[in-house]
């Protein structure tokens, strides 16, 4: 905990010292600085520029239907820093096309989580600042932080009593369910975010676990979807912390997300949303790589790439241990 506080303190100091410019925490932002240095090639004709010569780029999670702006491109050098598309007509859009709109800059305490043999969970501190070219708006800004693990389809089975015994009866596949999902915000999501915005960015846990398409082999697919959330929440894999984000002076914010010990490998996506009047103003996205290292890495790779050798190794180890114990006990008996 003490180390965590130090990380926050250091992060906030850095932010203050550098005046919350794009140069802040270049290691964490990675491509952010590079994007600034090399102006993106304009695609299409007259792509609307928001500010500082950045092309608006579509976040991967943004719904596609009719949302693409003519000039929407992903900035060269990877999509780590993302700017919202310049949508038109939707409520709250005027706020986004404002050149003086507020921006969010954020960094994580670490962008790499190593799963070692003694890995027992870790904590990621997310901190950042709200950048303004104009005086602060009235009203406190809200910040939502989400971290999601790799998503995969899940088979959900339900038991029913058949001939007196409980047996798996109905089953369905939930098409997408993140292996881990944490969402922290400055207040209850219902109050902080409008339903439309929640749907667009899939922020609430409920919108992360979903069945695609209406075709389903069960009468009540929603019950199965809810079961995924309930079971994963019980395992500590789905976490909702409504008031875990702390905002200081309407400018700086900090939160922490605990990764449990039973996480899987993969690229975890951390998103930081800046919200005003229940509308998303800006989004910052970055990737946390969760990787097995050392012996864990080696054993896992061997088991997949050379399964026969791995199996033989397991057997040899087993027999050696059996023989060793037998010998030790024989010697002790003498």
């Amino acid at each position, binding site marked *: 905990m003490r180390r965590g506080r130090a990380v926050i303190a250091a992060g906030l100091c850095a932010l203050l010292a550098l005046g919350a410019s794009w140069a802040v925490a270049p290691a964490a932002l990675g491509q952010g600085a590079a994007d600034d240095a090399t102006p993106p090639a304009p695609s299409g004709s007259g792509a609307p520029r928001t500010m500082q010569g950045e092309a608006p780029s579509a976040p991967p999670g943004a719904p596609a239907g009719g949302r693409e702006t003519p000039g929407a491109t992903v900035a060269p050098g990877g999509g780590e820093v993302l700017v919202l598309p310049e949508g038109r007509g939707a409520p709250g859009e005027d706020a986004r096309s404002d050149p003086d709109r507020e921006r969010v800059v954020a960094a994580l305490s670490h962008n790499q989580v190593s799963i070692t*043999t003694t890995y027992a969970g870790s904590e990621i501190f997310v901190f950042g600042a709200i950048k303004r070219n104009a005086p602060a708006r009235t009203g406190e800004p809200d910040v939502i932080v989400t971290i999601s693990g790799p998503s995969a389809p899940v088979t959900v089975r339900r038991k029913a009593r058949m001939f007196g015994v409980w047996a798996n009866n109905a089953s369905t596949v939930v098409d997408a369910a993140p292996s881990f999902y944490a969402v922290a915000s400055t207040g209850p999501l219902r109050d902080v975010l409008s339903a439309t915005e929640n749907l667009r960015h899939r922020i609430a846990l409920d919108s992360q676990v979903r069945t695609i398409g209406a075709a389903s082999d069960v009468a009540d697919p929603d019950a199965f979807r809810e079961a995924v959330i309930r079971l994963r929440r019980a395992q500590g894999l789905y976490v909702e912390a409504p008031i875990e984000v702390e905002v200081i002076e309407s400018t700086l914010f900090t939160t922490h997300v605990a990764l449990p010990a039973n996480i899987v490998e993969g690229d975890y996506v951390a998103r930081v949303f800046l919200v005003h009047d229940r509308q998303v103003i800006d989004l910052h996205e970055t990737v946390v790589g969760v990787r097995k290292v050392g012996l864990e890495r080696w054993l896992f790779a061997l088991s997949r790439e050379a399964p026969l050798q791995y*199996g033989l190794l397991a057997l040899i*180890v087993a027999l050696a*241990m*059996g023989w060793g*114990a*037998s010998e030790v006990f024989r010697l002790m008996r003498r």
Partner: protein
Amino acid sequence: MLIYLPIAEVSVNAFVLLGLGGLIGLLSGLFGVGGGFLMTPLLMLVGIPPAVAVATGANQICAASFSGVLAHWRRGAVDFRMGGVLLAGGVAGSFVGVEIFELLTALGQVELMVSLTYVLFLGVVGGLMLIESLGAMIRARRGTAPKRRQRRRGWAHKLPLKMRFRASNLYISVIPPFLIGALVGLLSAIMGVGGGFIMVPAMIYMLGMPTAVVVGTSLFQIMFVTGVTTLLHATQTFTVDIALALLLLVGGVTGAQVGARFGMKLKAEQLRIGLALMVLAVCLKIAFDLVATPAELYSLAAAP
């Protein structure tokens, strides 16, 4: 102390696993059962995914059995010839068993079938053993001369292909032990266990082998069956967790040695009563789970 398991992808307390391995090892050395029917449910209780629990359990039981076989072999309590015949039957049976298992998978309801098979076999075997061994104990208490079990010249003696099993002091046809081995192989492929809890009583009551030799011989056969199972799982389902196995082994091999030593001090009837009670307890637990309303009706699995 928490340890992250590379294949199971969960973090588990190392001491819990050591203790679990030790307990199963103790029972293994004591009764000559591999302990698979206890290991798999217990590992799942600790939070290990079922597939990893089954495959790694096989690996652990293989080592514990090897340790047990060595201990029994030193006091000449392993009938290798009988073990060989049982093993030949076991291999044949497990091939058939794998086919049946695949058929059940295609039909769905493997889980239910496995549970029902468990209840049926554990119940019948445990019940018969308990009745028989209690009877033997009461007779001994009453002071009735502990009748040396009469060698029944039953069907095992009439069939052809007779063979002398010196360690078991038997001269019988190889067909009954081969069939018993095949049955055990079949069931172990379906139920995912070594099959000791079926083989031990079968050897005692159907073949008339002396209890002292039965345990070592059973372990000898289990060692091979679980060895093959480990390799099959490692190459086909990728669910053998070597780190988990290692932790279980440290406790397991030690427990097996203690169990084998301890077993020598107990009377044959006491051993049989102990095994019967344990088998019945597991049987009742599984039966209860089948009938009782579960707290959570839903379960998750990786989609194919």
